[in-house]
């Protein structure tokens, strides 16, 4: 995909609408000028691109394993080896990268990233049986990916038709077919299914979310790889460029089908067929952003979930535990580990990012925290891309000359920024480079 040129709008001589009086007016004005919530500084650009690359490598594993679990492990009652995807899934070509892809958007190859394969072979220790790597935690932490899926499953109705479909008769019929096929010749499990059908249905719904997230990340991994490559080639001039690349990418694959297939032997059972018309943007990307970025990030130990102390809101919509709000510091006590994702990203940091971390705070000692904060910055940029994409899809161009249209855009941006008024939001922190 061709990198976009810098798109910072030229300042208007006479503003068509008065300045915003919102608490985050500066950020709103920046968004209206085609910028990101993240200030446009060279270091911010370096940080977010570096972390996208470090994120993309484990993500290349996440999406393959998520699909493996959804399609092959499925309802295995003892999924001890669900984090050991078969070679077929490790070799599974990406649908949007590589020569073989029917819709090639990104320039990368279809295979799993070489750094990922190298890490899977040796880890940080040395080559040894897979199981030992797994038990020693010298591996990709798939638990993170599962926690993201669980966040989507738990919050459910966050736009799109996906969740409604899971309650439909058509879905139940397909799921029933898949369950019976999967447990064919297993009277015990079939008997249990007869006794507790809803429990099995719930498990299938969860598997559908596995597929949903796997298909979402199948797109995002090559996006991030390409951004890293473009940056290495000197292609991005600022944070808005990186955001625009994401916006263009979102539109390029917005219509990608979201489905759930289950493979039992050679048979393929379409639990959610592609013909249902679920799309990547509305049934995967937006619910994912809402669930993980805003409401619940699987950053265990970063926030108290003590319901008895009334620290969990009554209203589900008031949840604000996402990465945009997360206190990246591990708190509570010693022993609470930094998040699993941070550990995963640590394996694949580009050298220029490591250099930055060595210059600040405790250098190598607290890289996990520094990269966690970088990740938070980068996710503010991704969220900006989503906000701009929504504005693009639902409202008016930024260079529109009709004040009423500009006011509509303004109201949209202000409504988005209202979500960052609460004190936990880190929007204010990422405005300064001192937050590390």
């Amino acid at each position, binding site marked *: 995909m061709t990198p976009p040129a810098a798109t910072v709008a030229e300042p208007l001589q006479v503003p068509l609408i008065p300045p915003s009086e919102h608490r985050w007016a500066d950020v709103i004005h920046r968004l209206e000028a085609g910028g990101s919530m993240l200030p446009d500084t060279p270091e911010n650009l370096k940080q977010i691109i570096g972390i996208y690359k470090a994120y993309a490598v484990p993500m290349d594993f996440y999406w393959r394993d998520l699909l493996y679990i959804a399609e092959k492990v499925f309802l295995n009652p003892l999924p001890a080896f669900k984090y050991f995807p078969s070679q077929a899934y490790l070799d599974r070509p990406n649908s949007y990268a590589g020569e073989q892809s029917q819709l090639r958007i990104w320039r990368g190859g279809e295979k799993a990233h070489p750094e990922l394969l190298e890490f899977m072979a040796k880890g940080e220790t040395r080559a040894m049986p897979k199981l030992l790597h797994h038990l020693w935690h010298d591996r990709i932490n798939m638990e993170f990916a599962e926690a993201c899926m669980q966040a989507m499953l738990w919050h459910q109705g966050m736009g799109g038709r996906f969740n409604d479909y899971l309650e439909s008769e058509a879905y139940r019929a397909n799921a029933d077919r898949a369950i019976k096929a999967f447990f064919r010749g297993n009277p015990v499990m079939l008997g249990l299914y007869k006794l507790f059908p809803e429990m099995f249905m719930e498990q299938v719904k969860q598997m559908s979310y596995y597929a949903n997230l796997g298909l979402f990340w199948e797109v995002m991994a090559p996006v991030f790889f390409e951004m890293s490559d473009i940056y290495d080639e000197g292609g991005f001039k600022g944070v808005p460029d990186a955001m625009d690349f994401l916006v263009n990418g979102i539109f390029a694959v917005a219509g990608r089908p979201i489905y759930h297939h289950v493979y039992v032997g050679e048979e393929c059972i379409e639990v959610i067929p592609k013909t249902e018309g679920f799309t990547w943007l509305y049934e995967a990307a937006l619910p994912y952003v809402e669930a993980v970025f805003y409401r619940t990030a699987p950053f265990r130990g970063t926030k108290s979930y003590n319901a008895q102390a009334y620290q969990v809101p009554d209203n589900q919509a008031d949840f604000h535990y996402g990465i945009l709000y997360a206190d990246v*510091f*591990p*708190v509570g006590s*010693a022993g609470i580990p930094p998040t699993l994702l941070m550990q995963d990203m640590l394996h694949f940091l580009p050298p220029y990012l490591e250099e930055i971390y060595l210059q600040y*705070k*405790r250098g190598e000692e607290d890289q*996990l925290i520094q990269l966690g904060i970088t990740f938070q910055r980068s996710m503010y940029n991704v969220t900006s891309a989503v906000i701009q994409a929504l504005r693009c899809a639902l409202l008016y161009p930024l260079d529109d000359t009709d004040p009423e249209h500009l006011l509509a855009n303004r109201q949209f941006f202000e409504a988005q920024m209202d979500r960052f008024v609460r004190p936990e939001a880190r929007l204010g922190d990422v405005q300064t480079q001192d937050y*590390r």
Partner: protein
Amino acid sequence: MASSLPLLLLLALPSAAALLIPLLASASPARVRNLAALACAGQFVVGLLCWRLAPAELHLAWLPKLKLSLDLGLDGLSLPLVLLTALVSTMAILSAEADHARPRLFHCLLLATNIGVVGSFLSRNALLFLLAFELVLIPATLLVAIWGGKRKAGAAIRYLVYGSVSGLTLLGGVLALAWCNSNGVSFDYAELAKAQLSPSAQAWILALFLLAFGLKLPIVPLHGWQPFTYAEAPIPAVMLLSGVVSKLGAYGLLRFGVGFLPEVWAAWSPWIAAAGAVSAVYGALNAIAQSDIRRLMAYSSLGHMGLLVLSLAAATPLSLQGAVAQTLAHGMIVALLFACVGLIERKTGSSSIPELSGLLNPLRGLPFTMGMLLLALMAAAGIPGLVGFPAELIVFEGSWVVFPRATLICLISSGFTAVYAIRLFNRVGFGRLDNARADWASTRWSERAPAVVLTVLIVACGIWPQALTGWSERATSSLALRTFALPNPMVASQREGTAAVALATRTLPS
């Protein structure tokens, strides 16, 4: 034949370093610090040698007209305290920052404090003891006044005033003890132990000693200087003041009160025990209410001094052993506590409890320092396996038979230690580490070393309590005013629970 050279070495090593350091004009602050620490470490080694090979007492005439002579000696009471002083001095000096301002003067004053304290413990002459005791006041005051915190002037003046009153009353007590002795004027300990004094003279002299040493310990209501001084003094000075200098008060009460004035001590002991119990409760409750770690430690120390006074008041063989054990245990614990506080202050710039939180954070906090602080707090709370447990156990067991009510009160106050320890740790260790503040480097091993040494000793002495009591068993038994045959349960029940307490024949130290 035993030599008295080691006794001279105990004083000569720090003195030589104190004389040499001012001449090292071009030496780096770190080198000055290391030299001072080396002198104190050498003192510790000599002390250990004295334990294995008891040195002969030294008697050198100094000012015969004033009956002042350089009489030095070591017995079961003074040897462990000399070792404690050498140990804490070494660790205090090493706890100083490597690039300390005006390092030569700073370390000379620390060494001078050490010389005063060790000189007091070695003295076998009351006038010499007084001189050494007074010597401590000047360098300690200067340490507070020059290197103290924001309110250093007030703290230094307060310390000076209280210290001067302590010194003056001690002077009065020592002179009265010598002059009122119908056997003739003498300041020699052996003579003072056999002094013939009228009951009223004994009472007045003990009152003076209680005031002098009570101010030094300190004990309620004579503690006015302590929280201010501990809050403002530089950390090495606080380690010395709390870990060593305050022990001069305990030693003085034992040597001069229990040793030289046993009858009146026994008669006043219920009141002394009551003062100990009040101190224990007052210190613990105030510690709970503090919002600054240094002040919390100061009141904690005050409470633990209350236990010490209780055990001295009981004056049974076991309680006096407990007093020595508590002196040693508290010296190590409080030194470790302040060493940890010093590290926290150095890194975070604050000892204010509301300003600190999340220091246990494994990546951006001070987890190692907080671990040692936790261990020190646990030791202070008397958790088994650490040095505080055997010391407090002996204190309580030894005092219970004489003053059950006061002991019970002290037991309860000891429980309060856990309250302020948990409160402190919960607020400072746990919670959210503020990213805006958490911009400090982790502690280096060279910085941690003094606290690590103290930590190891606190664990080791907890596992092997003989290290606390073995030194002084014979000396404290000979000083005991009361003896007890542990009651047979059958007999005890017939006596309706009353403890068999008998004033034993007084035995003076040889």
